[in-house]
């Protein structure tokens, strides 16, 4: 059954300060008011009659305050309300953080990208969220605020279990911070879905590699293969070893990597895919990552208005 609009109360604060004060007052003990950003997740729930919350705090009016993408000497700070259109159109993001640009281009279609925010993607915490492996692989930090102050946490500490977040109901995510990667870092992003656009991922992967003759540092993250988007720590450890020569041609290393990634993930059957396919695809992505990253950028950076 469809949601009934007249049953939903909405408050639209004028600015961040007002929003945080309101949340501190109303949500300090329990979540009474649910945050509404671009609504591309929540409105779907509402339309399907599945929205559990009857009181929403509409932060869309805070966009001017929270949508800036700012570069500094050390990296970038992306406002939580930057849309995927804004992120993919940012030249600096394309240049320095191509995995995030690629992920932004693959979220839904244009209509969804125009409204869906990165903060919403992070807080919605779908294991399939496309920007999440990219952010994890870049060691992103989240800036979280309440009316008393702010805190900064690595995004890996934000996800504690399926939709179980390190976030109090009185808090808002205000921005995401990413440090520049070392010069020469290779970036890798791939989404496996039913069709090219407007399809939720069956598996999504992001990674980075540093090093010329052997791997100095590597990150590899997967989505849709566990209760949260995850870092493949065992795989990373396996690969960070001076004996692994670059470029990787040694079949035993590749096979070892394919084997190791299975220890990092716990894929399940669901409406979009099966456990066995996800396992198979994850191993394929690991091999693709290892064998193709040293070719010129695999990320298709297209110029789009």
């Amino acid at each position, binding site marked *: 059954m*469809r*949601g009934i*609009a*007249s049953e*939903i*109360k*909405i408050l*639209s604060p004028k600015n961040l300060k007002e929003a945080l004060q309101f949340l501190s007052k109303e949500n300090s003990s329990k979540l009474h008011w649910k945050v*509404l950003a671009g*609504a*591309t997740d929540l*409105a*779907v729930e*509402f*339309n*399907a009659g599945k929205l559990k919350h009857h009181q*929403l705090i*509409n932060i*869309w*009016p805070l966009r001017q305050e929270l949508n800036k993408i700012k570069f500094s000497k050390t990296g970038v700070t992306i406002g939580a309300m930057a849309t995927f*259109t804004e992120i993919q159109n940012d030249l600096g993001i394309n240049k320095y953080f191509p995995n995030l640009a690629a992920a932004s281009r693959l979220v*839904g*279609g*244009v*209509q*969804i990208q*125009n*409204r869906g925010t990165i903060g919403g993607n992070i807080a919605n915490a779908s294991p399939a969220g496309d920007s999440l492996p990219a952010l994890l692989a870049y060691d992103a930090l989240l800036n979280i605020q309440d009316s008393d102050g702010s805190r900064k946490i690595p995004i890996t500490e934000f996800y504690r279990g399926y939709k179980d977040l390190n976030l109090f109901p009185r808090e808002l995510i205000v921005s995401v911070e990413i440090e520049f990667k070392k010069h020469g870092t290779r970036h890798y992003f791939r989404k496996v879905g039913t069709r*090219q*656009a*407007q399809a939720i991922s069956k598996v999504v992967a992001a990674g980075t590699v540093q090093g010329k003759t052997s791997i100095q540092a590597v990150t590899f993250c997967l989505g849709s293969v566990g209760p949260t988007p995850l870092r493949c720590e065992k795989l990373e450890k396996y690969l960070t070893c001076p004996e692994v020569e670059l470029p990787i041609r040694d079949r035993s290393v590749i096979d070892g990597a394919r084997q190791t990634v299975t220890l990092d993930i716990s894929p399940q059957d669901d409406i979009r895919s099966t456990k066995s396919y996800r396992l198979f695809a994850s191993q394929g992505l690991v091999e693709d990552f290892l064998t193709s990253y040293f070719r010129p950028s695999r990320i298709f950076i*297209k110029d*789009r*208005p």
Partner: protein
Amino acid sequence: MKIQFTVNKKKYSLDVSPMTRLLDALRNNLGLTGAKEGCGEGECGACSVIVDGEVVNSCLIPVCQVQKSTIKTVEGLSSGENLTVLQESFTRFGGAQCGICTPGILLATQNFLDLWKKKKGGKVPGEAEIREALAGNLCRCTGYTKIFLSVKKALRNTPRPERN
């Protein structure tokens, strides 16, 4: 709550629940039935309208989020009987069959072309770019080929209206 916005250059003030879908406000309160409901889940793009210069799915927009916005629906594309070049092209080259997806496709295309022109000037977008721009719009009839053809024809040669 009171919502004020501009639709197709006309100012409106409505008294509706803030969670009312923009799609319903347009269709039920303003009688603008160009935007269609295909899925109600953001998947099909039949409800596409342009809000403050960006194409969005009106089935996913609570009306409180368009306070003071400027909106364009398919009804605002043509001026009276005079269709736009794009609309002419769709009618001429089979880009529209049953027509359910057409308002959304026209608006998504028009929005894409306007933004493209702003950024790229006279350069003509290729098929890949057009496909990407229309990825959020599903069509059950045309198989898309004629939609892309109509867009490309509109870009290449301004189709001549066939009028007696």
